């Protein structure tokens, strides 16, 4: 390969880096600023990973969605309408027809174990807070603060466990 062509490829690679990763970060940043919903969670599994500590959890919506539509044999993806009950959002049924039929709604696919998968099951927490998270039990003051985009995908903003925020300082 000639040096000129090689430099052009390097330039294209730099452009791809900027467009792809820059666009990704910009999109996630804009989604963070959207309207927030509060989703109850259950089942903690704090882990220690090389990239940092994160808490694995399951949204209550996974169980609620299964009550409306049995995941085994179901067609995926499915959209589930959610509504507020005592400050937290719960699944109220399947979304039928156009977007106006329910808003907000969550998009779910099927995971490998035939459960509804809302695409979010972890939240990275401060290393010093990870041990604290391990000891706390689920209760009504435990929920995920998130935004939902136009496709129904959930984007985590903060994790509140027993009323205590585990998110980044700027988000609390």
């Amino acid at each position, binding site marked *: 390969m000639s040096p000129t062509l090689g*430099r052009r490829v390097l330039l294209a690679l730099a452009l*791809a880096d900027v467009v792809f990763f820059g666009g990704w970060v910009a999109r996630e940043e804009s989604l963070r600023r959207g309207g927030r919903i509060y989703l109850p969670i259950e089942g903690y599994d704090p882990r220690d990973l090389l990239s940092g500590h994160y808490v694995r959890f399951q949204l209550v919506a996974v169980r609620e969605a299964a009550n409306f539509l049995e995941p085994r044999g179901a067609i995926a993806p499915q959209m589930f309408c959610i509504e507020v009950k005592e400050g937290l959002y719960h699944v109220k049924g399947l979304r039928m027809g156009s977007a106006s039929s329910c808003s907000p709604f969550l998009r779910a696919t099927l995971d490998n174990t035939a459960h509804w998968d809302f695409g979010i099951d972890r*939240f990275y927490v401060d290393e010093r807070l990870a041990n604290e998270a391990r000891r706390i039990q689920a209760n009504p003051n435990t929920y995920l603060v998130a935004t939902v985009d136009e496709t129904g995908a959930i984007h985590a903003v903060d994790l509140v466990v027993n009323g205590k925020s585990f998110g980044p300082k700027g988000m609390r």
Partner: protein
Amino acid sequence: MRWVVWGIASVGGLAVAVGIISVIAANWDDIPEKLKLAACGALLLGSLGGAWRTSRLENLWPRDLFLLFHCGMVPATIGLIAQIYHLSGHPWRAVGLCAVFALPAAIVAKQGLLTDVFIGFLTLALGFFLSEYHWFDNLFQGDLRVVFVYAAFGLVLLLSVSAIRGAHFGASAAAKRWGIGLLAATAVAASGYWATASSRWLGQQPYPVLRWPMGIFLASAAALSAQLWWTRPPALRARLAAIAVLTLLLCGALVGRSDEANLLLRQFVGFGLFAALCIAVAFAAAGSGSKLGTNLATLTLAGRVFVFYLELAKNLMTTGIGLIVTGLVCLAVAYAWWRFRRTLPVVALSRGAPG
């Protein structure tokens, strides 16, 4: 003396680098997210800047090292974004994305090392993808789908070797390394199936036995054989024999595996096929003038002989048979080396001039 100084300096540099990483890691959560992202972006683009600056040098190693660093920064950036925005998803997509970004670097680089990185990402992404669909779960119950997929991938890499050799010699060498490595790994896995019995018949297995992985493997093997026949490389017959024996080793492993009664026969046939494969590869490597390849194939055969002895050593009778067979194989290998010392260039080389 110069190497000692370089060695001490390297240890010192490594210690400082690891120390800096450790200090950053200790204060990781106190660093603002924007700063983390900016630093990551700077390193990502800075590596390409470095590659740009050094691309006019006569020695292109520095440029390729910058590109290698960029290949490492891509997964780091994906991981950082995933951590900051709490994203979770399918690992194969992230690794596949790394492969996409590694491809231009592999094309530009003079060294084959960047192609190694690209193929490594591809291999890993394929593994994660198959793992997501539980293709590895029944690996030890005779489900050879993964083995066939990886063997086909190895054959495709070998098919690409001659196509890219003219344009990028380093990349073709890397494709050859990975192709042979993947085929060797699948051959070892298949030989394991030959040596064990399963409680289930193939047709009664609880998972669907897909025929298409075997189909793509057979098609790839046929294509590689046709390409070899067309291009007439050195040691053509040994290469074709190696492909034929590998096909028998992999496809034959699926036949009659669940029958306990014929286990001893299967062990012998499996061992015979693996030994034949090693011999064919050794001949192909020797005919091509690769001393390393010949030695590795012979060493693998020696290892398989030892494992075969362990497989059979259940009572005095099987131990005796095992010792006789393994001894005969060792004698045959020694005879072959002596017999072909004049016709094979590698054997001739090892007798005279070094390596």
